[in-house]
């Protein structure tokens, strides 16, 4: 109902919304080998590869252009009957893979399997 003395409301307009289609391209590289990869996922994610430059270990890649070094830390504890993880190419037990960047350090632990015997 129109109220006398009150100006009419402006007509409703359809809001113009600009949809931004993000093309998320992530380029990955490894400082120890020549392997490169590209992913298109939008959420946080990482990329692993079997690194030819690090004894064939499964190593996380870094965003291309990142200044860093990636090293494997050999397991120094007594192994005994521990079901530890080994470097595929050397057969040596590996405890950690450490990525040292200019602004920090990542670490991947190669956890041994906890075991029990039914015998």
């Amino acid at each position: 109902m129109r109220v006398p003395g009150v100006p009419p409301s402006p007509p409703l307009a359809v809001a113009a919304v600009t949809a931004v289609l993000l093309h998320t391209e992530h380029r990955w590289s490894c400082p120890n080998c020549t392997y490169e990869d590209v992913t298109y996922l939008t959420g946080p994610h990482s990329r692993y590869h079997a690194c030819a430059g690090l004894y064939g270990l499964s190593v996380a890649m870094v965003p291309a252009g990142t200044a860093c070094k990636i090293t494997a830390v050999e397991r120094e504890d007594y192994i005994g009957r521990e079901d530890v993880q080994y470097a595929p190419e050397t057969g040596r037990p590996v405890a950690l893979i450490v990525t040292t960047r200019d602004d920090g350090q990542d670490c991947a632990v190669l956890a041994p399997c906890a075991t029990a015997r039914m015998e």
Partner: protein
Amino acid sequence: MAWSASGLSRQLMVDMFSSVILANGTGTTGWAGWKNSGTPSSFKVALYDNNVTPSRDDTAAAFAYGGASWVAAGAATGGTGASNSQVYQAVQWPQAGIALATGSTTAATGGAGIAMFDAADLASGTACTISNAYGCFVYNDSITGPVSKQGVCFNNFGTGAAVTNGTFTIQWSANGVWRVT
């Protein structure tokens, strides 16, 4: 007072075979299928420094998160004393640990007489700073009884792992988080 090996809880095996814990049950004693089916239990992984003394022969009460062997007390930088053993950082790898995202119990292929539990690798937030993580404790966060948050196993990293403003990742063995052979 230190890590020396990885191990699976002996009391857990006894409890499951004697139906103190119902592996496919519901309610306070139900472990609900180890994530295989139905509404799975929530398993968490907490980090510990070298002041703990893990033992697979602990009682169920001691082999639980918050129990005598796996105290909840800790410090963000880790390694500050025997009664202050958990290593964590709020949000990044919080106190009480991170939940296993996926996992399943299987009869492992490639080997006869093997039962194993495997899960997806675990990662912290990308700005994590912790040190002196010598191992992890895997426990059931869902149950409240007969022992609350009873543990499953502990995995010895073999050295003190650390990250600075980075990502802390646990890559489980191809043989699983635990296995019985």
